[in-house]
C-alpha cells in the first residue's frame, strides 16, 4: 500500500518546501514529517519521499541510514533514550539503564512485547548539568532518581491512548 500524508501534515509539507532554494534540502524535515505519522521510514515512506522531492530512493535510503533518529524498522509506541555519555555516566546513567532494562523486561535496543516501549541509549543529549537523564518521546526528564524512572515507565506501559 502506498503512503499518503494526512491533510494536516500535507499543509506542513508545503510550508517546508518554501524554506529552501531546492527540493533536496527538504529531505530531512519531510522524512521526519512522514516518520511522525508512521513511526518509521518504511519502504512505502522511502518511495513517497523520493517521488515528492524528485530524488532517487537510493539517496533517501542513504540519508535514512546515516542519521540515528530515522527508524529503519518499526519501533514501539513510545521511545525511551537513556543518555550514556560521560557526564551522565558520572552521575549514574549505567544504573538508570540497567533499571529500565529490568523494569521493562527487555534489553537496550529492544521493544516490549506489547509494542508499547522501545528502549535505547543515546549519546550526549546536551543535558550534562542535569544528569542522569532520559528522553521519552519528545520530552527530557532530568536529574532522575530510580523512583522517578519507575513513575515514568509505569505511565508509558499503562498508557492506553494511541500516540
Amino acid at each position, binding site marked *: 500500500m502506498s503512503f499518503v500524508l494526512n491533510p494536516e501534515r500535507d499543509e506542513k509539507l508545503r510550508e517546508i518546501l518554501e*524554506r529552501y*532554494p*531546492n527540493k*533536496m*534540502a*527538504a*529531505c*530531512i*524535515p519531510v*522524512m*521526519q514529517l512522514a516518520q511522525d505519522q508512521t513511526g518509521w521510514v518504511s519502504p512505502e515512506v522511502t518511495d513517497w519521499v523520493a517521488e515528492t*522531492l524528485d*530524488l532517487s530512493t537510493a*539517496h533517501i535510503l*542513504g*540519508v535514512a541510514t*546515516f*542519521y*540515528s*533518529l*530515522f527508524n529503519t524498522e518499526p519501533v514501539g509506541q513510545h521511545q525511551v*533514550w537513556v543518555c*550514556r*555519555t*560521560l*557526564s551522565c*555516566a*558520572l*552521575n*549514574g*546513567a*549505567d*544504573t*538508570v539503564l*540497567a*533499571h529500565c532494562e*529490568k523494569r521493562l523486561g527487555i534489553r537496550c535496543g529492544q521493544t516490549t512485547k506489547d509494542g508499547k516501549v522501545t528502549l535505547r541509549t*543515546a*549519546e*550526549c*543529549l*546536551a*543535558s*550534562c*548539568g*542535569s*544528569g*542522569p537523564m532520559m*528522553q521519552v518521546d*519528545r*520530552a*527530557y526528564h532530568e*536529574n*532522575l*532518581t*530510580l523512583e522517578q524512572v519507575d513513575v515514568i515507565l509505569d505511565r508509558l506501559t499503562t498508557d492506553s491512548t494511541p500516540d
Partner: protein
Amino acid sequence: MLKRTDYLTKRYGLKESWKLSHYEHDGGYRQARRVMRMKREDIVEEAKAANLRGRGGAGFPLGVKWGFMPPKSDKPHYLVVNADEGEPGTFKDRTLMELDPHAIIEGCIIGCRGIGANTAYIYVRDELHLAKDRLWGAIAEAKKKGYLGERPFSVNNHPVEVYVHSGAGAYICGEESALLNSLEGKRGEPRLRPPFPAQAGAFGMPTTVNNIESIASMPTIFALGGDNFSKLSSLHDMRDGGCRLFGVSGHVKTPGVFECAVGLTLRELIYELGGGVAGGELLGVIPGGCSTPILRADEVVDAAGEADPLHRWHGQSVLDVPIGVDTMRGLGTMAGTCCAIVLSDKACPVRAMHNLVRFYRHESCGQCTPCREGNGWIERITSKIVAGEASLDELNRIHEIAGNIMGNTICAFGEGSAMPVLGFLKKFRPEFEEYVRTGGTSSPGGLALSETLGLSDS
C-alpha cells in the same frame, strides 16, 4: 578572574523569559534596527573589535570569519547558525534557545546584514524539541512586528528570513561542512576544503557558519560597542574578548551554566561556581567538551621561557590559568566550548576514557578510513583493558593508532577523537599500566559515585 556578567542570561529566571515582551523591555531589537541602517564594512569592523572567539569550540575570531565573505557578489549569501550542540559535557547553547531565543533572532538579523545574507538557517539537533519550538515562536513574534521579512525595520533592499532546520541525530553534523551537507538534505559527511564555506558553502553559495552563542552575543556587542565588549575579558590583550557561557558537570556539587567574563579559571569554575568536587578530591578536568584533552589536578604550568605566552603563570597550577583559546592551547588542550567535565578521585580514568572512545566509535561518520577503523580499534582495545584482558603491548598500540588518525582525515573529528585519547594515556599512564597489570583490581571503581542520587539498584 571570576567576574559574573548577565548580558546573555539576564532574562533566564523570568517567567516565560522567551517572550518578545521581556526581550523588548530590556532594549531588545534596538541594535538590529540600528545595524540594518549601517554599512556592511562598519558592521564587520565592529565585530572584529569585539575579539569574539567562536563559541563552538574552535575559537576562530568571528569578525575575521565575517570578513572572508565576498564583498560584492550577485550570488545569494547564507548565514548558517550551528546549534547542533552535542559535544559531550556541553549544555550551554540549549539554555539560550530555550530561555532567550529572541537574542538569537536579533543576532541573526545583525549577522545577515553583516555578511550580506538574506536568509539564515538555524541548524538545531533533532532531540531539542523545546528549543526548536521556542525559536519558531520567536521567529513568528518577530515577523509579526515587522523585524523579519521583506522590509525588516522598514529598511528597503535587504529582506531577512530566519528558518529553523532540524538535524536527525548525528554528532558529526556539528562539524560545519557536514552540517552544510545535512542542511542540503544529504548524509552529514564532512567536505574537503577548499573551497571554504565563504567561497562555496550552503547550496554552493558564500556562507558563514557561526555557533549559536556567538550569534546570541551580537546584540550585546553592538549595544556596548565592540571594544568595550572585548574589554570585559581579562584576556583582551590576547584578543580573546567579552563574556561567555561556562558550564560545569560531572562530579561537582552544583553543576550548571554560568555567564562570566572571559578569563575565568578552572579552579573558579569548579570550586566557586560548581560548588566544589563531589565525593572526593579532584582527579582531573576535561576543560571544554570531551574532545579537549584532560588536565590533571596536580599539573603545573611549565613556561620558563619569557617569550612563552603562558610565562606569567609559570610554576602555577593549571587550574589557575584563565580559560582562553590561546592559554588552553598553551597547556596542550583547548578551551573548546568552555563546558568542563569534572572527575573526582573516585572515578576510574580507564573507564572514563572507555566511555569516550565508545562515543567516538559510534559517531565517526565512516568516510575516512583512519578515523572509522582507528576509532573502532581503539574502542575494542579499551574494552579489553576494562575487562582486564589486554596486554601492555595493546595499551601501547593505542598510541600508534591514535597517532595515525591525527592529520589523516578530512575533518577535525579525527583530531578531536585522537587528542583526548592521547591525553588520557599521557596524563594517566601509571593508572593505565597498573590497571592492565592487575586486570582492573587497582581501579578505584566505576564512574558514578556510590552515593549518587540514592541510586542503589537492588
